[in-house]
């Protein structure tokens, strides 16, 4: 289900810092670690690729819950973006599933709690449901940001827009935290509930 984007002015504080947040993440050790993965995986995935992706997102223990690599590749190839967002195999976390999808098709954003909380604070309906992350809503919200982001807020990087927005959301969440005000409250200062 897609949700209407919050009005432009409510996104303005996020977009104002987006360029700097992306560049900071891109040049950070975590940014380089991400690139070591994207430049090493192959399509279709090998077993080693899946292991590497899961290790990168700290979910190596979920390998057994994913299908065998052949079946996984058939699933990845048989669907178009964003159909697989809501089709995680049972027991596979949004973190692991989104990473598996992203490193094959970088149009899929990588799920993190911080990014999800930032989206919620921005007014998107991307919060966890019944304690479970809603990756489908997360993807829909990031898709809205892809459209709304001003060109000037996107710096030159070798990263797809979904990755840029993902690290931007994390940066925005952290900035709120770093200033001693949770991002939800920082957002409220700009007139949101």
């Amino acid at each position, binding site marked *: 289900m897609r949700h209407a984007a919050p009005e432009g002015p409510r996104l303005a504080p996020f977009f104002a810092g987006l360029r700097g947040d992306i560049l900071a993440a891109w040049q950070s050790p975590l940014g380089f670690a991400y690139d070591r993965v994207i430049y090493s995986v192959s399509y279709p995935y090998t077993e080693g690729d899946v292991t590497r992706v899961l290790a990168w997102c700290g979910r190596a223990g979920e390998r057994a819950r994913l299908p065998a690599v052949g079946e996984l590749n058939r699933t990845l190839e048989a669907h178009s*973006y964003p159909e697989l967002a809501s089709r995680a195999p049972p027991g596979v976390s949004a973190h692991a599933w989104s990473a598996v999808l992203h490193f094959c098709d970088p149009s899929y954003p990588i799920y993190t709690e911080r990014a999800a909380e930032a989206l919620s604070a921005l007014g998107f309906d991307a919060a966890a449901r019944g304690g479970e992350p809603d990756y489908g809503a997360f993807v829909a919200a990031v898709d809205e940001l892809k459209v709304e982001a001003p*060109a000037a807020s*996107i*710096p030159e*990087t*070798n990263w*797809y*827009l979904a990755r840029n927005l993902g690290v931007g959301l994390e940066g925005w969440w952290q900035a709120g935290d770093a200033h001693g005000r949770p991002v939800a409250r920082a957002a409220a200062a700009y007139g949101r509930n």
Partner: protein
Amino acid sequence: MATPAATEPFDQWVDHFDGWVGRVDYPRHLLGDFRLEPKYADPPAATVEFGKYKGAPKWRRPEEHPDPAAHEILLKLITIQGDTEFASVEQQRHLLETAPTAYDLKSAVRVNVEEMRHGWQMSHVLISAFGEEGQKEADGLLQRNAQEGERILQAFNDPVRNWLDFFCYTAFLDRDGKFQLGCLLHSGYYPLSASMGPMLKEEAFHLGTGVTGIMRILAAGKVPVDMLQRRVNWWVSTSLDCFGGEQSRKAKAVYDLGLKGRYDEGEGHEGVEVAHVNEYNQGLYHEEVTQIVDRFNAHRPSGTPPLFMPSQKFRRRVGIHKDGCFAIDGKPMKDTAYEEYLEANLPTKEDDERLEEIFKEEWIAPRGA
């Protein structure tokens, strides 16, 4: 801004586009689920930002422009922009079989498919507002062929021989593209101005792919720096030509009519002689590329020689320095020695042969390696 409704002529053009994909032999399975569609976004200003009509509402239709000459100029501006988009795919298509990594292949396809979308965008503007003339020009975008030397600007007929060229092309020539889009972002013609935001957002990835690629090449240390320097000399001088003549009555007329502005229009830089608007934009480009080359040098492996920026006078095929004999540092040279000098400072057949061997090694590092 809502996308104008599809029209029958545009649907017909889409059929022609499908034929172009076949002619270019672009692997359709690589296009995946990318949505080719026109995208419009509100421009930075609703009123004309410069020129004789500054302050008037931007023109939604070509015929709204008070000067009849604007129609022909707009048609030409949009056609040239669209021509470069499809040309770049024709120039790069053959590289898909030799991508150094799977992600580089994915990146090149992304660059290509977004350039196709930019071509769609310009065709949509042509067809939705310029009637039969627009349809004819939009069809022309699909009929000319870079491989046959038929594209409007020479840079888009030049060969892109290998992946070293691809990264230089996306870092330097696509950057000229960014500057052209940035100038058109401020156009008084609303559909053109409204087209640029989404195109610029996509262009950032193309430029990032190029700059990152060159940094990865330097990090691997397999491609000799002098060989890379010769590529930089070629692509920077080629890109400078794309700004047009430094002193141009045509550019002045286009500016006066409010159709194409300065790259940094609206940032308060007054006092630019309008007849020198191309020179001004070219200067901004040169400044930006100089900073990028400085970044390359800051990241190059120790013990390797620095890269340097060629002068704006070097090997120009357009403008006040056209066919002049200037060294890379801008100093004048005797024309008797110049041909030999160019051979030594531009890519050679020997470079290409040597690169074929280098490409069999680990010639490009993953970023962050």
